[in-house]
């Protein structure tokens, strides 16, 4: 920061002028480099509304290093002329002068000097005029005094060509008095310190105002994944509605539980290699509830339980094939089978977990996503019950229209009765994709 003396000098200058002053003039008045004044302006700005400074840019002509030398010592040609005594000077000696080469040719073309090549003792240079006028120097001195306006553009451009002048852009400030202008500097404090509190010095201090437009610093914390937050929200809704969470921590499933137990025929397109990930290792499941498996086989191939069945040759080899489960309903099937093995009590189950489809990843297809599933098993459940419970579920979610969000239905008797569930028990279920819900509703 510039020292207070300089700052106050600047302020005194600003005080004297009405309507403001240019920082370049301030620099000229105080006889310091313009950059120092620019620093001072910035320091003053940091003090609040002492001054107001508007940035502007202006173009002006400035001497180059060589130009300054000429303004001081004369042009090369003048220096050459002045170096030549009346009796002349040998050319080789003249050429040794710092300005020799350039000055010689310029002075020659100005016809100030002549060269006698045939002179005895080697070529010799003589003055041809008594006195000269060094116009180059005069012009440069004008520019140096800040009077470049007196020169014609043509003249300036010629000097520019000779690399004696250059045109520069200067960024300067137009300084005017601020709303709390003062010619004395009171340094503002940035922050309250323990020392100020201890000494009470804060009472005398001026504090630099905060910039309330700026953003705060981000807190140093972690975040939950947004999709997992929605998972938690759904989980909470199910728990509030009295649904028990199913153990869905088994991504690898047999075709039997994923398809056959759900009365999905073995030729169904969903069981195609194009749609389902099959497992090469471990390729086959090796353990099934044997009685139940026989009943599943029978209901598929021959029917029963009031069903015509699909009338095809059901093969254990198809059922054994391991896969990445395509829906969590495979787990619902396991849970309902387990339920059927004990004295029936009504249940409400839910799960939210990953399922897999054999897709090529793109913007609209995922090979894995989270399926949300709810299942209710009880005597005498109706379609009206299914719609009632869906209504409650989606109301809790804050959704008024719930068509197209997911699927719902009543499990088929061909699925439930072979498991051993009592005849009058109905199972209603619904499911949706967590990812699709988040895409369309958040």
């Amino acid at each position: 920061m510039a020292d207070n003396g300089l700052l106050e000098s600047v302020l005194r200058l600003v005080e004297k002028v009405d309507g403001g002053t240019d920082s370049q003039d301030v620099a000229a008045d105080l006889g310091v480099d313009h950059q120092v004044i620019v620093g001072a302006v910035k320091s003053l700005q940091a003090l609040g509304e002492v001054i107001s400074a508007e940035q502007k840019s202006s173009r002006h002509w400035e001497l180059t290093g060589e130009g300054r030398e000429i303004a001081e010592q004369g042009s090369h040609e003048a220096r050459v002329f002045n170096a030549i005594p009346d009796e002349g000077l040998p050319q080789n000696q003249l050429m040794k002068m710092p300005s020799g080469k350039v000055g010689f040719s310029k002075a020659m073309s100005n016809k100030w000097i002549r060269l006698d090549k045939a002179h005895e003792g080697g070529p010799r240079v003589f003055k041809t005029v008594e006195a000269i006028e060094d116009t180059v120097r005069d012009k440069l001195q004008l520019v140096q005094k800040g009077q470049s306006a007196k020169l014609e553009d043509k003249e300036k451009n010629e000097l520019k060509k000779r690399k004696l002048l250059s045109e520069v852009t200067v960024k300067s400030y137009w300084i005017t008095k601020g709303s709390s202008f003062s010619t004395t500097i009171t340094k503002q404090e940035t922050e309250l310190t323990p020392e100020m509190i201890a000494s009470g010095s804060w009472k005398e201090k001026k504090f630099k105002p905060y910039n309330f437009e700026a953003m705060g610093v981000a807190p140093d914390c972690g975040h939950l994944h947004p999709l997992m937050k929605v998972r938690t929200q759904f989980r909470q809704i199910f728990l509030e509605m009295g649904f028990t969470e199913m153990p869905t921590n088994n991504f690898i499933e047999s075709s039997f539980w994923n398809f056959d137990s759900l009365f999905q025929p073995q030729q169904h397109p969903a069981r195609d290699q194009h749609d389902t990930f099959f497992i090469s290792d471990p390729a086959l499941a090796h353990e099934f509830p044997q009685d139940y498996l026989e009943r599943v086989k029978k209901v598929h191939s021959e029917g029963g339980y009031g069903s015509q069945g699909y009338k095809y040759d059901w093969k254990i080899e198809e059922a054994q094939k391991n896969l990445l489960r395509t829906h969590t309903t495979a787990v619902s099937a396991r849970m309902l089978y387990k339920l059927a093995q004990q004295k029936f009590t009504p249940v409400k189950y839910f799960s939210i977990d990953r399922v897999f489809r054999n897709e090529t990843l793109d913007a609209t297809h995922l090979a894995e996503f989270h399926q949300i599933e709810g299942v209710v098993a009880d005597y005498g459940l109706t379609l009206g019950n299914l719609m009632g419970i869906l209504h409650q579920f989606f109301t809790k979610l804050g959704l008024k229209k719930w068509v197209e969000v997911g699927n719902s239905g009543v499990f088929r008797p061909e699925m439930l009765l072979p498991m051993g569930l009592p005849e009058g028990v109905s199972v209603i279920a619904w499911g949706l994709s967590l990812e699709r819900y988040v895409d369309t509703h958040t």
Partner: protein
Amino acid sequence: MPTVSVKRDLLFEALGQKYTDEEFDELCFEFGLELDEITSEKEILIREQGGEKAEGASDVVLYKIDVPANRYDLLCLEGLVRGLQVFKEKLEAPRYKRVSPADGGEPQRLVITEETASVRPHAVAAVLRNITFTQERYESFIELQEKLHQNICRKRTLVAIGTHDLDTISGPFTYTAKPPGEIRFKPLSQSREYTAAELMSLYKTDSHLRHYLHIIENEPLYPIIYDSNGIVLSMPPIINGDHSKISLNTKNIFIECTATDLTKVNRFTLIITVCLFVCFNTFFILFRVEEAEVVYPDGRLSVYPELAYRTETLSGDFINKRVGINESAESIAQLLTRMCLRSEVSGEGDLIQVEIPPTRADVIHACDIMEDAAIAYGFNNIVRSTPRTYTVANQLPVNKLTELLRQDLTAAGFTEALTFALCSEEDIADKLRKNITETRAVHISNPKTADFQVARTSLLPGLLKTIAANRKMPLPLKLFEISDVVLKDETKDVGARNNRRLCAVYYNKSPGFEVIHGLLDRVMQLLDVKPGRNQGYHIQAAEDSTFFPGRCAEIFSCGKSIGHLGVLHPDVISRFELTMPCSAIDIDIEPFL
């Protein structure tokens, strides 16, 4: 769900009534269908291929209607119209009938030879008489055939349908199988004869047919159907012969269906022939199909198509209880009749007799009849009610623990990542400097890309990939995931099990082992496990190829190894395209349940 695309004006003409889009949408909903899109050929072309290609295309309004996967009888304009008309009680459901040849002549006959046994052993046939095509009906006929091929025929792998102009061929027909080199005929849309082998290479580049080649490509014998003069009708399931092709002038049609599965082809035949009939019943008075005989290699003779009507008897009470309504048996019978299931009250209690037509092969149980009754009643008219099922909720312990830990890990300054459970072999082996055989990984047999070769055995690759994708974020990057990995396990019925893991990484200009170690201490504090050798937790220097030598420790809790923490090996860091040091922790949380 298959989608049927129909011209709106033709549809309204056939229905004898005009609807607004909203009214028709409502009608679809009531009938259990969905009006998916209102468009035109032009619009479709503009969308798919850009404006230039669409120039001159038709802007006739098309309705795209989603039809339930089991309703093959609604897959064409004519079938759809029939269904809707019956639903609106403007028409009675048709009765389909199989008849003998009108002139008292012999039925057409298809003889199957034993050579077909190895490739495509089943075939059935039927005949349609006195057809009158218009351009639109012709298109609908072809489209229905294609829709059936794509859906119930499973892209021709189960069944292939061939339709022929009967007046260009003469029976009896022979269904046999021959080596590809010995089959020679002029196929549809070609100008000369080819051998079957030549055809297979010709169609390799055909955008439509190449999808079916695999069905017989590697068979020693190809299926083929000839007429009595040796003219080729078709080489199922690939292509028909050009000779017998259907045209706008065709009057009589011979239908053959071949299949790999007799049950499917039987049921299928019923549907296809009847559906074709449904197609034409708008200008046919009789819903009749002429029988055809099929002679099997063992000499057995069957007559097709089987147009079996079946009667189910159920009570009004059953429907009322399952749907949750209270209707009389008479009114339920009326609802069902509107769904093309002719029903009558039997007079015995509230029993209803329901006739299932051969077109409704999807009705295999009383619950299907219940569903149709509910559709006809109107789902929106069913009174919603809450089940009185009383239950107490329980969380799955491993998920409950996971939820609690996730909250606390974010409070500890780590951000949760969600990464795929499937990955490449390289991700879990080479990139982690492990041998794939020691990973106990479950392998996928049919992935479409290398990104899904295995189920992950570690959460680490997913987190490192997440960091690589977020390298522009300010350092340090602190990520975690609590989720399942999959490991082979012989003790499980499927030979594999999930394992819930906690993994966290710290990525910065310095490795930050102490940060990750501090996170372990915090997790253990949350789990109420104190530092200590026996009942507590401790870490001890270990070698693990994923970690930098001398910078890895094994974590023990109550004397049991639960995982590792340490500074990752520089090769692991580079293989995930990272540049900064990184420390990580990977533990099994199931011991803490």
